């Protein structure tokens, strides 16, 4: 394709797995190991290798917005890291036609002691903007982030929302031909998220190429022209967003009422299981209890348990956090094992398949496991009658005579 912006050819990336062998070693170990192998002909234990990406080929046209979905460890982030030149391929090659900017994290290089103004310049420079470019866009960045009055306040005094808004705003004003975005659109409140999505749409509308990785199916389906599904380092499906997302969400989930992560994200926090209590098929009027069985093993920054509920087409029906309705956004974690239940009331969901995205705390951020749970709400006792139309939910509301 002559009009390609990105051409990926037989791309593979191999990593050393670090169970007991970390990526970095100590020189001392290396020296003793070397000395030992002089006396023992047998080679030192060979590190375990695994392919994070395996023979991936992909062509992305100029102006196209491509969403990448896949479970954790499927290779999505590795793909973005290679495209953004942070790490190099083991095999194969990538051709990029145009200036590339990547947004793998908001606020890279932000320093808490520096003011908003200083951080805008610093972060802009790190993301590849020239001083002149930053100066030209400075007012737009500030206006977009809505932080005018706090411009000369150190960002350590910002609320987390303000911090994220500012960080995203700098990145949103990059002017690349190709923009790579990893899971960063879900920042701030709903209004700001909408603004962010609008900004990405605007960028793609100007004929720029965008590659987005997200666990947020609404984001992916709203923005993408095409969706690529990665699993175990290979592309297993690609096509229109609606089709691929539906297949992706229901893949492998026949009845998935209990979920245990394959490996905990950190050694501080661990889920022993997240379970939807009850039968696989719930009558529409029956409440559904979701139980979080978790263990806090080491002190960690404040956070919260939360999840999102998605319908079959990937639309987020609701998100709920245990701190909802309290003044605090985060709470402190008590060491030890705990169980918490969240009840979805009966007479809320319309019949259909539902998927739960579980957020696993990892330091001060979260890892999202989409489709961790899947269950079905049956038509039994449902309020949705044949002519109830396209409503997303079917709640039982209170009707009462008032006069």
């Amino acid at each position, binding site marked *: 394709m002559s009009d390609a912006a990105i051409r990926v050819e037989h791309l593979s990336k191999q990593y050393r797995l670090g169970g007991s062998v970390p990526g970095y070693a100590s020189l001392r170990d290396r020296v003793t190991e070397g000395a030992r192998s002089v006396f023992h002909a047998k080679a030192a234990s060979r590190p375990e290798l695994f392919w994070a990406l395996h023979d991936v080929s992909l062509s992305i046209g100029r102006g196209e917005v491509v969403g990448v979905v896949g479970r954790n460890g499927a290779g999505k982030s590795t793909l973005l890291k290679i495209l953004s030149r942070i790490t190099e391929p083991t095999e194969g090659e990538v051709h990029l036609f145009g200036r590339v900017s990547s947004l793998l994290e908001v606020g*890279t290089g932000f320093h808490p002691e520096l003011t908003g103004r200083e951080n805008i310049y610093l972060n802009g*420079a790190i993301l*590849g903007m020239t001083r002149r470019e930053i100066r030209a866009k400075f007012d737009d960045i500030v206006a977009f982030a809505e932080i005018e009055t706090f411009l000369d306040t150190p960002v350590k005094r910002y609320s987390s929302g303000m911090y994220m808004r500012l960080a995203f705003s700098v990145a949103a004003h990059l002017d690349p031909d190709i923009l790579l975005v990893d899971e960063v659109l879900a920042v701030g409140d709903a209004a700001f998220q909408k603004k962010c999505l609008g900004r990405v749409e605007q960028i793609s509308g100007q004929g720029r190429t965008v590659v987005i990785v997200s666990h947020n199916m609404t984001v992916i389906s709203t923005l993408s022209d095409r969706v690529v599904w990665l699993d175990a380092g290979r592309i297993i499906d690609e096509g229109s967003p609606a089709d691929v997302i539906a297949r992706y969400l229901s893949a492998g989930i026949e009845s998935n009422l209990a979920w245990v992560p394959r490996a905990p994200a950190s050694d501080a926090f661990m889920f022993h299981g997240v379970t939807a209590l009850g039968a696989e098929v719930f009558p529409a009027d029956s409440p559904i209890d979701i139980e979080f069985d978790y263990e806090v093993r080491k002190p960690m920054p404040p956070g919260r348990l939360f999840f999102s509920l998605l319908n079959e087409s990937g639309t987020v029906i609701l998100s709920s956090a245990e701190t909802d309705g309290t003044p605090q956004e985060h709470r402190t974690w008590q060491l030890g094992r705990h169980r918490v239940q969240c009840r979805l009331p009966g007479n809320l969901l319309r019949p259909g398949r539902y998927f739960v995205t579980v957020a696993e705390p990892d330091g001060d951020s979260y890892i999202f496991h989409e489709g961790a749970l899947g269950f079905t709400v049956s038509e039994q006792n449902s309020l949705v009658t044949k002519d109830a139309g396209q409503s997303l939910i079917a709640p039982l509301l209170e009707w009462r005579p008032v006069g």
Partner: protein
Amino acid sequence: MHIVLKRRRGLARLGLRELWEYRELVGFLVWKDILVRYKQTVIGIAWAAIRPLSAIFVFTFVFGRLAKLPSDGLPYPLIAFAGVLPWQLFATAFAESSASVVGNAQMVSKVYFPRLIVPISSVASALVDFGVTFVLVIAAMAWYGIVPGPRIILLPLFLLLCLGAASAGGILFAALFVRYRDVRHIVGFGLQLGAYISPVGFTTAIVPEKWRLLYALNPLVGAIEGFRWCLLGHGWIDARALAIESGIVIVALLFALYYFRATEATFADVI
């Protein structure tokens, strides 16, 4: 613009042109370093003066007063000052740049830019402290009534020697540090030792003539004596020694640059 990404094989290229394109980032990182340092420490800019002054006090007391080492008739504090000036630049630049890539792990694993920018910025930041110390040296010389001769125009050459040595070490160890975390202790120990091996608190005059060329295998000997020679008019300057020192620094710097470039592709994977 067409960029091809694939596994690098063979000798790495230095990528100097790209480095030049990103030169503004060096400025921003230095600016950040200084802003942060002076916002975080209570004594702020005074810190850049206290460090060399305390070193000079110790050297003058130990080597000048207790050991009564020769000073060519100059006030001992000036001998120490002219030694501490380049040594502290070297030590700060070396230590900071060797820790720089790991210290900026977050940036390195999330954004692309030429990785050499990171240690280079650390070396450049050290130059700011050097500037402060330099002003102090000028003040001290004025106090003792010593005016530098025309030789002072050669000072930038010795400054270059000093920066070259610091960059070579800093860049090499920055790359090693990513893979071998215990290298940190080697750098700290080496620098501590170096302050006493190099003629920082004393002059090369106490080294017997026949050992001098061997002593000059340490490039800092040339840099420090060069500073004394330019500023105070007394110092051991020897063409052969300087040639050896410059040669060592150039070879070491090239080796460090190539080693860094050859290993940087895996930084994000192991950091």
